């Protein structure tokens, strides 16, 4: 049964790790030795009553209405990350272990979502040589492009649109970048084979109801299953470009993590190259974190983010949130990539 403990652990593969789990994470592929060379992550069902709270809160995120969405604090060699009313996690990076304590009555889909899309990305964000950003990503002409934006702005819809047009998708929400020492560059890593979509996106993309499952109890988003006719990338590839979604005026209010909209855009999609400070800020805002104040983490993150800003191309992308525009958005992105291919190669990291 999903979200409940079993005597025998489940084993999956994700981002090169073997996930040894007390939970049924049906979205993931079963573990295969060849695909688990980064090590193991242990996912344990636990009770949070003994978890110690430190004095210092390391990070907190609030919803647009001011309610607390997530907080984390140092605790016994790791972090406790709490999603009030939903679930708490104790994340122990040295042991590559996540303890999960769901609140009573919280459904399995919500727990699985919080494990896959919050707890594991935040654990990996603590690993040197890794960075996890809130972005969707697809492969276009041998290059990986990422789409950055707030929840509800359309990252998943854009990724699903590209996937429906035959472009392999790497992720719809959590993009893991891993440093490849031999290639001296950051590789975007494929996540798992599912996309989360709003009902109107499901309709617009023509996805059958039978290919969908509940995403989380608090959202009308649906999660696509293996029946959806999307192509998922099998291997990592260099991240070459990022498109940052401009404020669209259409964030979806029922999504608890959706930010406030800033401005409307009407008419054909527009792309604009971002200045360095804009690109850096967009990346910095997209990072999955457990601790915003730890000096060592911030030093490492600064090096990574400035390096990415120096080597990846960034555009702002504004489009009217009508599905009829998606082909034009696709063309705008591809045209921008092609036009920039005539520019000198961006600096390679030393």
């Amino acid at each position, binding site marked *: 049964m999903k979200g409940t403990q079993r005597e025998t652990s489940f084993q999956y593969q994700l981002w090169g790790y073997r996930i040894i789990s007390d939970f049924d994470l049906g979205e993931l592929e079963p573990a295969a030795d060849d695909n688990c060379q980064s090590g193991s992550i242990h996912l344990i069902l636990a009770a949070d009553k003994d978890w110690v709270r430190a004095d210092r809160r390391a990070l907190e995120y609030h919803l647009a209405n001011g309610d607390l969405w997530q907080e984390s604090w140092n605790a016994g060699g790791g972090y406790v990350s709490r999603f009030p009313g939903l679930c708490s996690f104790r994340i122990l990076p040295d042991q590559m272990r996540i303890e999960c304590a769901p609140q009573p009555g919280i459904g399995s889909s919500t727990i699985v979502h919080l494990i896959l899309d919050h707890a594991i990305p935040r654990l990996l964000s603590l690993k040197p040589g890794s960075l996890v950003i809130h972005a969707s990503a697809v492969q276009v002409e041998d290059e990986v492009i990422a789409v950055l934006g707030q929840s509800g702005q359309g990252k998943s819809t854009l990724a699903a649109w590209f996937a429906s047009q035959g472009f392999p998708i790497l992720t719809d929400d959590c993009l893991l970048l891993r440093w490849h020492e031999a290639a001296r560059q950051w590789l975007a890593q494929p996540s798992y084979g599912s996309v989360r979509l709003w009902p109107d996106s499901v309709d617009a993309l023509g996805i059958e109801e039978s290919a969908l499952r509940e995403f989380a109890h608090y959202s009308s988003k649906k999660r696509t299953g293996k029946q959806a006719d999307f192509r998922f990338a099998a291997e990592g590839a260099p991240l070459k470009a990022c498109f940052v979604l401009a404020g669209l005026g259409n964030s979806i209010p029922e999504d608890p993590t959706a930010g406030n909209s800033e401005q409307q855009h009407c008419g054909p999609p527009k792309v604009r190259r971002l200045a*360095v400070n804009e690109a*850096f800020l967009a990346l*910095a805002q997209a990072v999955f974190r457990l601790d915003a104040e730890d000096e060592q983490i911030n030093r490492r993150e600064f090096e990574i983010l400035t390096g990415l800003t120096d080597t990846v191309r960034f555009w702002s992308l504004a489009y009217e949130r009508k599905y009829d525009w998606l082909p034009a958005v696709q063309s705008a992105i591809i045209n921008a990539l092609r036009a920039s291919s005539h520019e000198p190669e961006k600096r390679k990291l030393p």
Partner: protein
Amino acid sequence: MPLPEKFQIPKCVLSRTVGTETILLNLDTSTYHSLNSVGGRFWTLILQGKDFDQALAALRDEYDVEPGKLEADLHELCEELQSLSLLQRAA
């Protein structure tokens, strides 16, 4: 004759030049800042141990800008950087 103004960059401040801009991180406040090309060049000169007058002279040579305006802009920049604890007067 007054001593030249000498500044130093606190150990808690990291910087890196990317293209024409310089990104700064204050580790004590966990906040990022950026400088344009002129500000970034000034920052580099301070990092190299130049005092204010030496940095000003170097920038006058490098940029086609009215000298009085450049000096006023740099004074303003120094004040702003100090207010953000990104720069401090050397002892």
